[in-house]
């Protein structure tokens, strides 16, 4: 039985796909969203410290499960199959809303220089660092839409490095918690410019939903009172309310069908009963995240694109990046823990750019409240890993340890990549993603600088002992995965144009972090949402004008 033809199929109901689905539905297009996961809620797992999206020894609360393995090159030539709850997997989530259900919800705009990294700093050897084909100014109205429509609490009045904005945030900033107050005062003494972290979380009732009640655990968990704003409780319900949109859960996309004329004709997928289905449409938008979107393109082979859709010049899957998280830990004499969630409240952007000899940097923030199990791995170098001494440390410092860290902007690497694995297949028989490559050495230089600033900040706040944390040289990705289908003006060095339209396939679009040329020194989700509005707005207008068929 064939499915009813629709105007648009959106693959993935996450940060990008949710926004695009709403934009297209409101523009009058009929839309089917294919989401591999399900609708989830707080009640699915509650506060389970061993099953959530942050600490996952017993599994991911919000998917995916072991039916979706990946392959990772752990050492040169050594390929290992990894499951979604292992760190090397680079998981995000698999559910309606994807990572936005359980994220920490920091709501950053990238800065103007983040869109012009190559012009600002020059491209280092071994990197594919480049400018975005769009400027901050072009994206600014769409950042604003994301802030207003999804809902952000914030106040940038004390951050002189904040990029220009036309409208203030729709909700006031959250107050500082105890750590935030200590660190704010210390930052001022260091002549830095602290400000409250903008959050996709309600500081006051907004959008018909509640204000945050500051549970202990937020990052990694769904919200029990719906005060955290993801696409699952904002734009996707709006899309459904138009009557034009259907969200089809447990739907595993396997291939975008591209005809001999170079047009996408539909998407093949497996439904919840593992039956093969084919949804035809006028246009396709891929929003599966940097790993899965690249994998789907690579698995979509056709006469015109034998190496995968949009992959004429071997750029699909390239430049996989995340963030080189760097920071420091500090032990304090008095309790710093006040049990007021989410815990992350204060930031400085003084080291995002303008660091001598370095290309970029990172925003620095205090961290979300850590579950005790996660804290068992937090120790100064050389500490006991077990026994009485380990237990004593847990007891003494669980409430007296603060960490400050930042998402260091990475230099993209052509060899850091996603491929379709030649032999390993998932439960549905689809070739899995395989990940390989490593970070650029400059990322670690920036990381060392950023961790030194974090350490200085903690000491000024009164830390008695501090130690630094800098990532290793291995492959990046993780929840902040980006870059694998770069947008650009030149089809030979990018996958899509500046509207997310895949070069040579006019009715195939991408709307997720795959498009990011660079990933900013900030958590990327608000930029993904802004791009969703940007791409969605373009498609809506172009489709109605008859320019996409």
């Amino acid at each position, binding site marked *: 039985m064939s499915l009813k033809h629709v105007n648009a199929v959106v693959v993935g109901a996450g940060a990008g796909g949710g926004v695009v689905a709403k934009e297209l539905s409101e523009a009058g297009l009929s839309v089917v969203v294919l989401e591999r996961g399900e609708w989830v809620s707080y009640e699915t797992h509650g506060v389970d410290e061993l099953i959530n999206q942050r600490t996952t020894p017993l599994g991911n609360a919000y998917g995916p499960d072991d039916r979706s393995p990946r392959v990772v090159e752990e050492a040169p030539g050594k390929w290992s199959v990894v499951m979604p709850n292992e760190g090397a997997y680079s998981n995000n989530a698999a559910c309606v809303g994807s990572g936005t259900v359980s994220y920490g919800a920091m709501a950053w705009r990238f800065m103007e220089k983040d869109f012009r990294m190559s012009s600002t700093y020059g491209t280092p050897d071994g990197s594919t660092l480049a400018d975005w084909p769009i400027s901050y100014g072009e994206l600014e109205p769409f950042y604003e839409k994301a802030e207003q429509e999804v809902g952000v609490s914030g106040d940038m009045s004390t951050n002189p490095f904040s990029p220009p904005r036309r409208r203030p945030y729709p909700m006031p900033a959250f107050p500082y918690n105890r750590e935030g107050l200590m660190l704010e005062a210390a930052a001022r003494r260091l002549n830095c410019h602290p400000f409250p972290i903008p959050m996709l979380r309600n500081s006051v009732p907004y959008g018909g939903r509640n204000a945050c009640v500051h549970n202990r655990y937020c990052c990694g968990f769904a919200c029990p009172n719906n005060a955290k704003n993801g696409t699952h409780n904002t734009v996707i319900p709006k899309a459904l309310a138009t009557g034009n949109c259907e969200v089809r859960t447990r739907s595993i996309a396997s291939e975008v069908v591209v005809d001999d004329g170079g047009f996408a004709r539909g998407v093949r997928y497996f439904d919840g009963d593992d039956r093969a289905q084919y949804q035809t449409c006028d246009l396709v938008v891929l929003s599966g995240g940097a790993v899965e979107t690249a994998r789907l393109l690579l698995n979509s082979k056709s006469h015109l694109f034998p190496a995968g859709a949009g992959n004429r010049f071997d750029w699909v899957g390239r430049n996989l990046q995340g963030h080189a998280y760097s920071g420091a830990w500090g032990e304090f004499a008095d309790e710093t823990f006040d049990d007021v969630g989410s815990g992350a409240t204060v930031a400085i952007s003084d080291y995002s750019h303008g660091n001598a000899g370095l290309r970029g940097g990172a925003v620095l923030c205090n961290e979300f409240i850590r579950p005790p199990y996660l804290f068992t791995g937090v120790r100064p170098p050389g500490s006991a890993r077990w*026994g009485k001494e380990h237990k004593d440390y847990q007891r003494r410092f669980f409430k007296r340890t603060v960490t400050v860290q930042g998402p260091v902007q990475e230099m993209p690497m052509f060899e850091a990549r996603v491929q379709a694995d030649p032999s390993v297949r998932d439960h549905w028989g689809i070739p899995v993603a395989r990940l390989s490559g490593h970070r650029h050495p400059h990322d670690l230089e920036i990381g060392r600088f950023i961790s030194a600033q974090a350490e200085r900040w903690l000491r000024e706040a009164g830390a008695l002992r501090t130690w630094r944390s800098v990532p290793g040289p291995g492959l990046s990705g993780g929840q902040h995965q980006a870059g694998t289908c770069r947008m650009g003006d030149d089809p030979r060095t990018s996958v899509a144009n500046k509207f997310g339209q895949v070069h040579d396939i006019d009715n195939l679009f991408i709307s997720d972090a795959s498009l990011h040329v660079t990933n900013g020194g900030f958590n990327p989700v608000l930029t993904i949402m802004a791009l969703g509005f940007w791409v969605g707005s373009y498609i809506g207008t172009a489709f109605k004008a008859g320019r996409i068929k």
Partner: protein
Amino acid sequence: MQKTPPSPSEGAGSALPSGDGGRAMTRRTAIKIGVVGLVGAAVGAGATGAIARLSGPRQPRWRFLTGAEASLLADICDQLIPRDDAPGAAETGAVDYIDRQLCGPYRRHRQAYRQGLDSFDRTCARVFKAPFASLAPADRIRALGLVEKGGAPAELWGDPAQQAFFNMILGHTMQGFYGSPRHGGNRDYASYRMLGLDYPQLVGQDRRGKARS
């Protein structure tokens, strides 16, 4: 909610000795178990010295582990997170946690536990000429440190390698003791109490009043 089987370990400490060998429970053994239940947490189940061999009959209270394996594992867990003025790992269900996961997400670790515990038992016999349970506290720490650092006789270890085995048990014990009690460990919120975390949290309670305290 995820369904988890009810804990079979009602009552006494988590790793009762299996010394009865299947005899019908007499009034005397019942009293003995009761006493162990009261003080067993402090002395550790293996302190009775009743376990001689790892290949003993499987005890019905465990899902995967044999009684002897569970007893040895409890003794190991109690070194990783020992009792002091707060409870230790075994008495708060670390072995329950691990045994339960070995029939769930950790099914893939079954062979590593079976083989690794046997290798560890033979390591103690070879190096210390005694079962782990009868070693003095300092030697128990030494025995585990040997395996942690990869210093045990190599011929006694295959798959799992000794350090991988140690790291596996260490990680799982930490999960059991410091993780959510619903999985079998951290009984009575022992680690949360130790850390001074109120639990269970009242979901929906507005904690903003605390923000500026």
